[in-house]
């Protein structure tokens, strides 16, 4: 089955995932006794979410929580092991998908522009690549698209440079110009500013907001930086050890986090205020558990101050705790 991703349908939910899981098998050595027991890294575990059109959704969590795997699964760069992805109502899983037509509508910006931009390509060739690969434009069209995209990101006059001659922020602008060059509906941004300095990060964040207004883009932003997520996003998804532990409107989740992990995560984000030294009052102990042998029940229970017997035995389901805010915790009622 090849699903055609035509423009005819217009759903309010541009992207939906249902029970997405991703397992990475671990290659064993030559131990003959270990051969028959395949082991896996549980990178994503039953992730369900909905992204409304025109919104910015941020996925936050610490390294190893599966946020990049999620982005790679959605873009089919590393297809999920199980679960379903619906883009504009059409399934991307279970069958052959016309990735060309998908990428015409969904683009990605990667974390490190040094590895996502070919050092031997000129800026104009980098930016024109999606046009050349995905659209049947002629030279003139390509040229004008490239020039326009570069103008939008503020890099007119840089078309003939090589990435090596650009600064970190400029490189990330090239990556953004490339993503918007074919006017996608949705862009996935994987840590778009984590390699950048503070003053440049602010420039890129504001550029992203402007682009969204001008082109009605939907963003899925993967970040470990809660301040960046708070600044950009309308909806927030918090992940821990491959699971979504809490999601909801950003304001609500930030001001009233209900999952003990979200509470810990938000209180360990440094705030630029010497009178409010939240970092020195944090309570959370321990570190992210192994993804190979994840803890039983709720994966957060070894670090959780509220953990009880049930947390070790059963993994909690998602409960709507306030309008639009969902929490996966047995004691969600108690945590405020």
């Amino acid at each position, binding site marked *: 089955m090849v699903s055609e991703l035509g423009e005819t349908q217009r759903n309010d939910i541009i992207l939906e995932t249902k029970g997405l899981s991703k397992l990475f098998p671990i290659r064993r050595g030559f131990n003959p006794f270990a051969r028959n027991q395949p082991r896996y890294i549980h990178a994503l575990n039953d992730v369900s979410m909905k992204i409304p059109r025109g919104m910015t959704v941020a996925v936050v969590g*610490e*390294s190893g929580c599966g946020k990049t795997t999620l982005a790679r699964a959605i873009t089919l760069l590393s297809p999920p092991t199980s679960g379903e992805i619906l883009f504009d109502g059409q399934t991307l899983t279970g069958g052959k998908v016309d990735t060309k037509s998908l990428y015409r509508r969904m683009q990605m910006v990667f974390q490190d522009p040094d590895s996502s931009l070919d050092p031997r390509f000129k800026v104009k060739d980098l930016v024109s690549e999606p046009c050349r690969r995905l659209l049947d434009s002629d030279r003139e069209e390509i040229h004008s698209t490239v020039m326009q995209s570069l103008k939008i990101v503020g890099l007119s006059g840089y078309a003939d440079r090589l990435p090596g001659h650009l*600064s*970190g*922020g*400029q490189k990330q602008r090239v990556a953004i110009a490339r993503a918007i060059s074919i006017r996608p509906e949705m862009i996935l941004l994987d840590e778009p500013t984590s390699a950048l*300095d*503070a*003053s*440049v*990060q*602010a*420039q890129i*964040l*504001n550029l992203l*907001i402007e682009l969204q207004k001008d082109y009605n883009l939907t963003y899925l932003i993967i970040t*470990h930086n*809660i*301040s*960046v997520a*708070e*600044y*950009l996003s309308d909806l927030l998804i918090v992940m821990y050890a491959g699971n979504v532990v809490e999601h909801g409107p*950003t*304001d609500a989740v930030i001001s009233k986090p209900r999952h003990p992990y979200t509470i*810990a*995560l938000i*209180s*360990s*984000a*440094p*705030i*630029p*205020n*010497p*009178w409010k*030294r*939240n*970092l*020195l009052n*944090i309570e*959370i*102990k321990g*570190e*992210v558990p192994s993804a190979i042998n994840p803890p039983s029940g709720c994966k957060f229970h070894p670090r959780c101050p509220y953990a009880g017997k049930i947390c070790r035995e059963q993994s909690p389901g998602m409960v709507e705790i306030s309008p639009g805010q969902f929490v996966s915790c047995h004691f969600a009622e108690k945590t405020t």
Partner: protein
Amino acid sequence: MSLDRKLLSISDLSINYQTEQGTSLAVQNVNLDIGENQFVAVVGESGCGKSTLALAIIGLISIPPARIESGKIGYKSVDLLSLKENERRKFRGTEIAMIFQEPLTSLNPVYKVGDQIAEAIMIREEQNEHLESAREIGIMQKTYSSNDLAVPPRFHLPRFSSSNRTQAILDALKLVRIPDPEQVIERYPFELSGGMRQRVMIAMALSQKPALLLADEPTTALDVTTQAQVLKLMKTLMSEVNTSILLITHDLAVASQVADRIVVMYAGDLVEDSDVYELFREPLHPYTKGLLSCIPSGSKKAKALKPIPGTVFDLTRPSTGCKFASRCPRCMDICRQKKPALVETKPGHRVACFLYGE
């Protein structure tokens, strides 16, 4: 801070790097004093010279490509820059210790964690005993029996597993609140998580009870919850061990959380130096103000970020005026002609900008 309690006193320090693009002025005429038991954060963007400054203090800067153009680094009553390498080594690790950004590259992957901490402790012991061999302790840290190696090692150290030394290692690990230290000493660095590795580095550095700890982006590679744990630990240990900390960071938010004093650097210049509360109450330098308005806090609807226009100053370019002039919203004619000097506007608050002072 009275003058007699000055621990480190840097005066007029200039360091440049010889690169293919020309001479890059990494640190220019920096004057900085650090008192005893003070937590100072040096904040700036990449390429502002903050790491070069730390490396120069501990004497790990490689010359060439670096060259120390001028200046003094006074530690207690000694000018570190005038010392010979073997004299300098006596300070390194024992008086001034350093922890780095990526613990995996500073820990040796082929030795167990316990052995690496033992090395630090042994060097201290041997120095205390004024042993001649102490100077020759290089990277070799374990004792080899001659059967193990075809080439016999140049010197022999006592095995660390004598009971007091094991106790000293365990104490060092307990100091940094590592759970199950008995198990951790038998592990290799790759078996530990990032936060644990950084704690081992801190344990190694603090096992020497240094008077000054240089921390170069110690939490940048760590997750936020781990970062919070490590910073909290550093802050508590500072008073326990009675050490001063010089924290190098790009993150003003992190600095505001832990430091007593903040030094802002831009393109090799020290542009502002102030008590942390004073700096956040009334930042003076336009760069500091810009940096503060670049930190996202709250939603875009509530407060839009005001990025600093332009890009960081190219260090290889010769400059006559203020290096921030091209990006400065309040740039005046004089800013392009003359370099502003660091002036004290209030006791303990220094700024290098023509808007203040003469």
